């Protein structure tokens, strides 16, 4: 190796490799290392990494009964793992070919009911056995060693030198003195940061424009129809029954806030009927209609127990009394279900007199103001 490099592009200075990355090649010549056994080399490397092998429990003696058994066990387990993997492939590929079809059929049971469980069983067994075999191999056939590794605290030298580099650069940049740079940097950082998050503004939409939260598809003269679109006459329902109705507008039965419960009260319930203030004429005869959307978390309140006049929400068990203007009587709901003012049109079908006079569904910050 020449001390002066004259290849094109070189600066003509000395081109010798610096200290090698890693091991102490100066301390151990290749000849010395070649004279060491693999075990010694392993220990040497470990020591170099701060690891000391304290104690080794050798694995079973070669040829011993113990070893034979362990080998048989591990071999059997891995063999089974392979077998189950092939069975998985067999079921996956073979279904609908030489095995019955895997697809769902109206007759319960049969191969289609077994397909998914068999896939799970075979893949589960196969992969689990791979893992079990590996653990057994480690535990029974490998030597057990106990190793200790040193844990170092941070080095004072590293801290001081790294800190000096940082401080030196800061000093050279002159940011402490050059105030204009610092200030423009702050302005620039703030501005660019703000600019980059601005497009998120596309997500913002005003909830107060057009009052979407406070209105539903109900309105004056909108008929009450069932899920299948048929209108309802007084007398269609048995006393004490409840029916879910929707506004007679396109897609009315899919709207999130329009579902309404039309209830025909029993005579005993009518006698005790108390309405909310100013809503005395919302009922039509023994018929009352309340929003089906719970005022707590918006689930459909569905379970009507007519003996107790209570409607239960299955999500959080709020209970509303239909004879008291659907006032909450138990559970976490705090507001009554809004009542729909009812009437009957010229053809004798139920219609709404207007939309709900308050927002339906869960409460929110400015509900009362809308």
């Amino acid at each position, binding site marked *: *190796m020449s001390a002066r490099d004259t290849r094109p592009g070189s600066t003509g200075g000395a081109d010798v490799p610096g200290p090698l990355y890693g091991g102490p090649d100066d301390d151990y010549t*290749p*000849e010395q*290392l070649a004279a060491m056994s693999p075990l010694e080399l392993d220990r040497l*490397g470990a020591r170099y*990494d701060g690891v000391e092998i*304290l104690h080794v429990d050798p694995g079973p003696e070669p040829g011993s009964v113990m070893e034979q*058994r362990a080998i048989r066990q591990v071999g059997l387990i891995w063999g089974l793992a392979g077998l189950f993997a092939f069975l998985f492939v067999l079921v*996956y590929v073979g279904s609908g070919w030489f095995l019955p079809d895997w*697809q*769902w059929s*109206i007759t319960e049971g049969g191969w289609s009911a077994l397909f*998914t469980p068999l896939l799970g069983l075979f*893949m*589960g*067994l196969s*992969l689990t056995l791979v*893992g*079990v075999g*590996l*653990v057994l*191999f480690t535990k029974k056939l*490998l030597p057990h*060693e106990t190793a*200790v*590794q*040193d*844990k*170092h*605290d941070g080095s004072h030298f590293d801290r001081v030198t790294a800190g000096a580099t940082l401080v030196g650069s800061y000093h050279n940049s002159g940011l402490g003195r050059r105030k204009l740079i610092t200030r423009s940097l702050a302005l620039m950082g703030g501005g660019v940061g703000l600019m980059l998050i601005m497009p998120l503004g596309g*997500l*913002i939409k*005003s*909830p107060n424009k057009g009052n*979407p939260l406070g209105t539903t598809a109900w309105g004056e003269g909108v008929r009450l129809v069932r899920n299948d679109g048929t209108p309802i006459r007084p007398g269609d329902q048995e006393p004490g029954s409840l029916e*879910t109705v*929707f506004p007679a507008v396109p897609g009315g*039965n*899919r709207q*999130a806030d329009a579902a309404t419960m039309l209830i025909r009260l029993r005579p005993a319930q009518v006698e005790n009927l108390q309405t909310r203030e100013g809503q005395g004429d919302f009922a039509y005869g023994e018929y009352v209609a309340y929003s*089906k959307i719970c005022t*707590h*978390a*918006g*689930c*459909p309140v*569905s379970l009507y127990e007519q003996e107790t006049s209570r409607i239960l929400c*299955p*999500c959080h*068990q709020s209970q509303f009394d239909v004879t008291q203007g659907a006032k909450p009587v*138990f559970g*976490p709901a*705090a*507001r009554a279900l809004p009542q729909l003012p009812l009437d009957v049109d010229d053809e004798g079908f139920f219609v709404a007199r207007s939309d709900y006079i308050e927002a339906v569904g*869960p*409460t*929110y*910050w400015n509900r*009362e*103001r809308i």
Partner: protein
Amino acid sequence: MARTATAPGAPTTKLGKAALEVDDRMIVAPWLRRTMNKVYPDHWSFLLGEIALYSFLILLLSGTYLTFFFDASMREVVYEGSYAPLRGVEMSAAYDSALNLSFDVRGGLFMRQLHHWAALLFVASIVVHLLRIFFTGAFRRPRETNWLLGVVMLVLALLMGVTGYTLPDDLLSGTGLRIISAILLSIPVIGTWAHFAVFNGDFVGEQIIGRFYIAHVLIIPAILLALIALHLLILVKQKHTQFPGAGRTEHNVVGNRLFPTFAAKATGLIFVVFGVCAALGGLVQINPIWLWGPYNPAQVSAASQPDWYIGFLDGSTRIFPPWDIELPGDYNIPALFWPTVVVAGLMFTVLALYPMIERRMTGDTASHHLLQRPRDVPVRTALGAMGLTFYVWLMVAGGNDVIADKFDISLNAMTWVGRIGVIILPPIAYALTYRICLGLQQHDREVLEHGIETGVIRRLPSGEFIEVHQPLGPVDEHGHGQLAYGGAPVPKRMNHVGGARRAVRGFFSPVEEPTQVEIEQRAEGRGLATGESSRELTTSGRPSEGGRPSEGGRPQEPRD
């Protein structure tokens, strides 16, 4: 140059030469050797976090598979697939594609269920891992950062779960979505704005499935991946904690090297976790969406419950009283805000800040690498038990309708049981746990002082009966042990200190020579009989009746 093929120690095999070629280019040998030599503590509880890591791996793989077939759109379509009961029903494209995935993709149902089970396991293993870290004090300095990252990842895992089980757009997930919408609305001041930003309008709109989808498959997993990488990097950098024991100090790690022992065990664990998830995914049905039907705002099924990890919020919502707070100006704070946003927010904030809180309370700012036994830190353990009781009780309250139904109890009574329990049970758990910790501590000290109870009763010449204790170490003139408690488990039974010989190996038939084992054990000084010659007998015990302490009431001949 320095390296030539003739140099001593140069590789002669093909593999060795290939390795040399690689190392010439990459210089990986020092890094590789350091990595393989890294020592990992050998304790099962260190595998809990690994289970979380591996189930995340399963989630990535199975989830990617699911995206090949899932259509995250709320466009209305009519189902025409092979599941006859729903044919002709209008539904969203998301639900339609989830049904197709279950019925018309070969093995699709298996993958969907595998994904769901792995998700449950993912959150469960994170929680158990967190409990282990908490109760052993592994979060103390210098590991506060990793604790914080862990709590953030737990929250992200919950968000993954919520966005994930919302995607199929079936009746159950739609009901959950409705409640999410109500929770968003309930936030004071910005609630409606937040709702309109997330849903792009009033509930339900046409965007939400698509938005949850991208959050579920890209945004949250990407953040999780980055945090996992950071979590592991810090772990490697700081090295593992370890339980106190012989030779273990604050400045070392005792255990197995990564290669081959730990690597083999960890790889084995990967396969076992994969296998268990696969078995569950095939054999145990989960979320049969075709039974729920498409989402319809006017319908709901009874016993609508979220996945287990959200159950505590469902429970807190059920038992919270109807306390809407009316403010001047016709504003109000809905009751729903407290048990959801506030409870969850407080719980995770306290959890995240716990290392700082404990440091402030105890004034302990030192670095710790040795773990504590829960009994040795009664206040922390009792606090943990209290928090756990609170959490579990809320979860129980989340199923109060099912309990009321199955046990024929009034639903209202169950709600009240939930309300009262959540207030009185945590303090009871605190007091009980505190006492139990102190009791366990005292028992440890007693065994160190007086020795292990042997179960051998001896009659002294004076007529007094005493129980013979086996001291664990040297004793003073009063017979009291002089060992100090070192934070490690204290042996409590004679077998723990070699009172019995090891069993002869072999499951069905012995594979060792029993006499050989006997000799080996005597040489190792195991078994009571080995101490016979050195022990000074002070009693007139009659050997024929098994009265000698050396026999300890145990048969001496090897039998198993």
